[in-house]
């Protein structure tokens, strides 16, 4: 059985769904962040897989690298915000951080 594009895509699709589930189901902000990381990784797998099989070549890699960069930046900022939320609410339970509602 030759491992092809579809295998990678399926892996990435499932990983994406897992990440999505994490984002949707968890209350803890850090957990949500982790879900997000999963999604980003899923996306990266796609980029690299298409680079390998879809003719994107090095461009796919570059895109993946940018995603990683973004992920890093996002993680840094998100965590900084998290810290602020924590200082404000004394917790990071997203269910109760619903000021956006108003």
């Amino acid at each position, binding site marked *: 059985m030759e491992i092809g594009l579809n295998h990678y895509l399926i892996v990435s699709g499932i990983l994406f769904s897992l990440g*999505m589930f994490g*984002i*949707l*189901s968890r209350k803890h902000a850090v957990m*949500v962040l982790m879900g997000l990381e999963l999604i980003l990784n899923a996306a990266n797998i796609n980029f690299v897989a298409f680079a390998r099989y879809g003719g994107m070549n090095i461009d796919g890699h570059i895109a993946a690298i940018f995603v990683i960069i973004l992920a890093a930046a996002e993680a840094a900022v998100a965590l900084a915000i998290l810290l602020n939320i924590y200082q404000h609410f004394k917790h990071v339970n*997203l*269910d109760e951080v*619903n*000021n*956006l*509602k*108003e």
Partner: protein
Amino acid sequence: MIEFEIMTHEKILLLSLSVLLIPMVSFLVNVFFGRKLGKISGWIGTTILAIDLVIAAVVSYSKLVIYPDIQVIQTKFEWFSLGSSSFNVGYGIDNIAAIMLMVVTVISFLVHLFSTIYMEGDRRFPTFFAYLGLFTFSMMGIVIANNFLVMYIFWELVGISSYLLIGFWYEKNSASNAGKKAFITNRIGDLGFFAGIMILFMTYGSFMFEDVFAGISSGKLPFDNPTMLTIAGICIFMGAMGKSAQWPLHVWLPDAMEGPTPVSALIHAATMVAAGVYLVAKVFVMFTADALTFIAIIGTITAFVSATIAITQTDFKKVLAYSTVSQLGFMVMSLGTGGYTNGFFHLVTHAWFKAALFLAAGSVIHAMHHAMHHLHDHHSDPQDINNMGGLRKSMPWTYFTFLFVTLALAGIPFTSGFLSKDGILANTLAWANLTGGWHWIVPVLAFSAAGMTAFYMFRLTIIAFHGKPKTEIAHHAKENQLPIVLPLVVLSVLTIWFFYSPNPIDATAGWFHHRVVQPETAVPAAYQWDFLISGDEGHTDALHADAGHAVAATQHAEVSAEVTSGSHYQNKLQEEVHHFHYIAMILSLLIAGSGIGLAFLIYQYKVISADKLEARFRKLHTFSLNKWYFDELYEKTVIGGTLLASKGLALFDNYIIDGIVNLSAAINRVAGQVIGIFDNVVIDGAVNLTANLTGYMGGMLKKLQTGRVQSYVVFALLGLLILFFVFI
């Protein structure tokens, strides 16, 4: 000696203007510097008046001696103008003004002199002289006015100075009430006066006497209606009724005696109250026959009613006050019956002797006051004649002057009073004879009033001065100082017949009757008594101003054309007066004599008991003592009615008008609430329904809007999936 030859008209006018203005100086000086001047202010006022007197004398002399035949020396100038119409004011001197000038300045000067002692020690001494100055100024204005507007202006100013002087002792409520009463009563008269002025101004477009009279004689009538001319005359006369205290507006004058006695002498006896008579004399030519009859009747009623009241009064000044009212009635009656000269003559003679009477009263009261002070008595009434008696001995100067002027008032020969009163009585007889009918009531009442005058004056003299002192106070009363006695003497001297006529029983021989000649009437002959029209002796029938005038007027014209005037009498009336002269004289002497005799019998010799008489005529006595209940009547009707109306209207305003406003506010508020409810329930309900629906749906949707990012993601995802299913 002044060079009278060079007294031009201009100079006379200039001098009379200064006569007017000089008293104002006294007013201003005393008002603004009075407090610093203190006691001297009185002498300053007196000095200023002395100067005024001298100038007035020059003016009078010039007019009466140099220019006696010129009707009036006058001037006018524009006060202000309104485009087309201009309001002129002016002043002028005619013969009666010249005489009046002397009367006012002399009495004013003497009263100033008198007051320097009488008002001594009063806290507002300078103010008193200031007010006297203001009064003299205003009175001068009336005297030299030659037009209605100026007359009205000074008329009011006199009223205000009278108000101030009556209420001079304003701490006393009775005084300030009396002042108020005087002013308001006068204003009622003034309302009529003003209405008359409006009628005349509207018709003739001028305030000047001469323009108005010329307009009337040209046949132009107000509203083209002769009745309106009569009404205009009566309206003007109403002013006189107020000022000269004619019935039914006479009630203020006795109350005005609350003022200081010199004020009573000056204003409420001699000058201001005579202003009404003076006014009637000034505009005499514009009265129609009907208006004159009205005037005569008012005068007669006044003369009679107040004489009956004077009989029973016990207050020294009140007796004199009612006597004044009565005498004013005589003057008005005289003018009303066509006796122009006699009426004005009585004004002048009365001014002297009534001023003297009041000043004598002042002298007595002053003495009584001092005696009370001496005895530390602060409760007795120094003016009650029952507290007096026997003053003849202790106050001889006062007594003799008083006695002499009383004789004048009673109408005893060799006094000026006899001359003038006799003339009036003769005049009424002549008038009644010429007009006939019920008009005879006028001379009857006049004669009885004359009798009563003699009676009550001697009653007063006897009770106050004769017999033994009735109280300790009267015992201690002493004669006063020279400034008080001197005016009495001067005024008494002026009461001697000699000053007016060489013949003690016939005034027509004197200068007065030659200088004061009845002016030719301006009223068209149809509306005037025939006997008042010159050169008309042949036509004796009194003509009533009624519907038949036109015919009568033509007849009259024909008749007068035929008649040749050979008589030396001015008109028919004067001829008639001459016929009645001796009858009137004898009658009046008899009546006056019996009045005096009765007074002596009752009060001096006590032949007839006063108490028994009183008991016998209890009701009459009470009626007279209470002044015919006029005050009560007015209190109940006019004053009460006005106050009731004002109260009613004030309540009406407070509750009804304002109530309506508040009610409409309340209604609006209620309506507002109803609408509010309606708005809330229905309109807002509909709105709210829409809103609620939206809101409900929004609420439902809101549930989706949890504020949780995760839920949003869920929906995004859901949407995405749906899209997938749809498109793929």
